[in-house]
């Protein structure tokens, strides 16, 4: 033995580390699973130029021109015309509840003005809560309309087809007229931060007891699974409430994010969201054997939550399968609710379509958590 550097000892350490790495199957799986997940999500699901955006068309002047405009929008890959209506109010409501990102309004006397040689207005209202999502589509509208009308502008109207744009496209950016990115990102961060901290906090709830050997003691006492769960989750509800208050305060006073809607409604839905996340964390803690595994599983939940929820990348830019996964995640719904309440002033009626999926998620996650809980050490 000598006191100097020993390659043999390095090899001894290496050998031991490789053996231990191989034993921890979950970590190894995560090391392979997480890169693959990221590759697939970024590679396939993320699209910075969203297409197939839900669009409602309100037609106050039906006729061949409006047909052509609707057809031109529908044929472009940017817009999916989900509804044609004759009521501008209905179109506005669809924007408010998020079932459409754009409302195109063909006003009364549109055909008459066009035929007369005037330049009628085509009103486009865009949901600008997420400024990035709609910008490419908006930019494409004037061109689409001109091209679409070209076939109709024949005979005496032919001269209009190639001249200056026959229609004046007026764009209204609703809810966030100045396209301020912070208005979108800061409320979104509320959802993201809660997802990260809440799931992480409860994911080690039982895992830590198990690691320290106190789990056996807990089971030997007359505590019931549901009592243990409520006891573990409740303190974190307070933590989550405090975090929400902190983030909203900073959002209001530092970033000047508008808060149009009801604070009570926001607080209530935030509670549902927080509890749903805690149920996920608790389920993880019934599975994870040690705290490291709990952290990894938390990350595995966190990653699709931020990527597929519409937080960073436009939700409607993703392919259908990615949107479906996104719809399962509570954060997707919570983001819509927060942005809806803060920026649009949504009320209960508008946000309900995003509230019940969170409640359903909470119920399912809670049931799994309680059922996964073993009363014995088997």
């Amino acid at each position: 033995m000598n006191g100097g550097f020993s390659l043999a000892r390095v090899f001894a350490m290496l050998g031991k580390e490789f053996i231990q790495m191989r034993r921890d199957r979950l970590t190894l799986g995560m090391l392979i699973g997480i890169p693959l997940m990221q590759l697939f999500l970024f590679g396939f699901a993320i699209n910075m130029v969203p297409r197939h955006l839900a669009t409602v068309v309100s037609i106050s002047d039906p006729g061949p021109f409006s047909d052509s405009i609707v057809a031109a929008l529908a044929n472009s890959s940017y817009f999916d015309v989900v509804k044609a209506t004759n009521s501008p109010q209905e179109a506005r409501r669809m924007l408010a509840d998020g079932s459409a990102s754009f409302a195109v309004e063909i006003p009364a006397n549109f055909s008459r003005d066009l035929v007369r040689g005037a330049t009628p207005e085509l009103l486009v209202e865009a949901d600008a809560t997420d400024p990035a999502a709609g910008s490419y589509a908006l930019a494409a509208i004037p061109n689409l309309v001109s091209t679409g009308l070209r076939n109709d502008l024949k005979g005496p109207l032919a001269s209009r087809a190639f001249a200056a744009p026959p229609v004046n496209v007026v764009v209204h950016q609703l809810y966030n007229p100045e396209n301020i990115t912070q208005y979108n990102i800061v409320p979104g961060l509320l959802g993201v931060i809660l997802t990260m901290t809440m799931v992480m906090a409860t994911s080690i709830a039982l895992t830590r007891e198990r690691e320290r050997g106190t789990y056996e003691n807990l089971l030997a006492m007359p505590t019931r699974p549901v009592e243990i769960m409520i006891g573990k989750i409740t303190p974190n509800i307070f933590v989550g409430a405090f975090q929400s208050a902190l983030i909203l305060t900073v959002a209001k006073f530092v970033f000047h994010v508008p808060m149009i809607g009801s604070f009570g409604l926001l607080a209530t839905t935030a509670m549902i969201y927080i509890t749903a996340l805690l149920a996920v964390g608790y389920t993880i803690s019934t599975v994870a054997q040690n705290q490291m595994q709990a952290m990894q599983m938390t990350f595995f939940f966190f990653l699709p939550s931020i990527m597929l929820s519409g937080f960073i990348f436009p939700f409607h830019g993703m392919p259908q399968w990615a949107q479906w996964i996104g719809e399962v995640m509570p954060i997707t719904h919570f983001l819509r609710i927060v942005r809806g309440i803060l920026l649009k002033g949504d009320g209960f009626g508008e946000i309900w379509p995003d509230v019940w999926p969170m409640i359903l998620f909470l119920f399912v996650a809670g049931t799994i958590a309680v059922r996964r809980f073993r009363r014995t050490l088997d």
Partner: protein
Amino acid sequence: MSTHQNAIDVRGLTKHFGKKTAVNNIDIAVPEGQVWGFLGPNGSGKTTTIRMLCGLLNADAGEGTCLGYDFRSQSEQIKRETGYMTQRFSFWEDLSIRENLDFVAEVYGLPRRRALVKQTLEKLGLESRQNQLAGELSGGWKQRLALAACTLHSPKLLLLDEPTAGVDPKARRDFWDEIHMLSGQGITVLVSTHYMDEAERCDRIVYISYGDIVARGTVSEIIAQSGLVTFTIAGDDARQLAGRLRGLPGVVFVAFFGAVLHVSGYDRTLLEKALAPYRADPGLTIGETTPSLEDVFIQLQEKTGGANV
């Protein structure tokens, strides 16, 4: 209910882990108020048996009662009246001594909680250290705290899983005094241990190996049942002798007790024959002794295939 019923009365207790049978069809009947020792090599199924008795593991087979409750279907009731002390300290190291006791008292819904905790702290002599974190206690104190905590709800049955492992002799002695005191109050105790002196303090001993009970009874019964004959060899050359005697016909095992070599077997004639060549050696003193409990346990362990994995 009769007054002389068994606190533990189970038959055919069986548990498999995968293909391995941890506990194989064992029967245990412990009369109320007795202290029973549970012995056997590591991995023989002691912990598994104890865990099944208090409902922490589901038995694959078996029937019977603990404290008059069906041990398979009424584990909630059993838990309320049983104190279970785990092998590893399993109270919360990041709670203070007092907070641990408080928590236990509250979970069991004990009346007059404050007074009870105060009284327990006084009895433990931990009053002045009640705000110290449990994790800062030494091994002996942790074990005393654990015993106090798992008897706080005045259980009728105590299941102790190697409670004195790693504890100094003085603390072990105090611990056993406490157990005898509890037993005197009518509490039934099943305690697993590796220490012979502790085994000798028990009313009855059950020896388990590879999940099977291979011996049971009082200390003298177990020694008598073994049919063992033991010779002693003392002297300076005894150390060299061990290797030579091992494997000779009739020699079942050879073990040192201090400086004295114990040579044990079942057949006195064969043993005499094996020892004959050394009788003349002036440096050796050969005698005969009653086999000790340890001799019997070593023999049981050798007979059943040694330590389990």
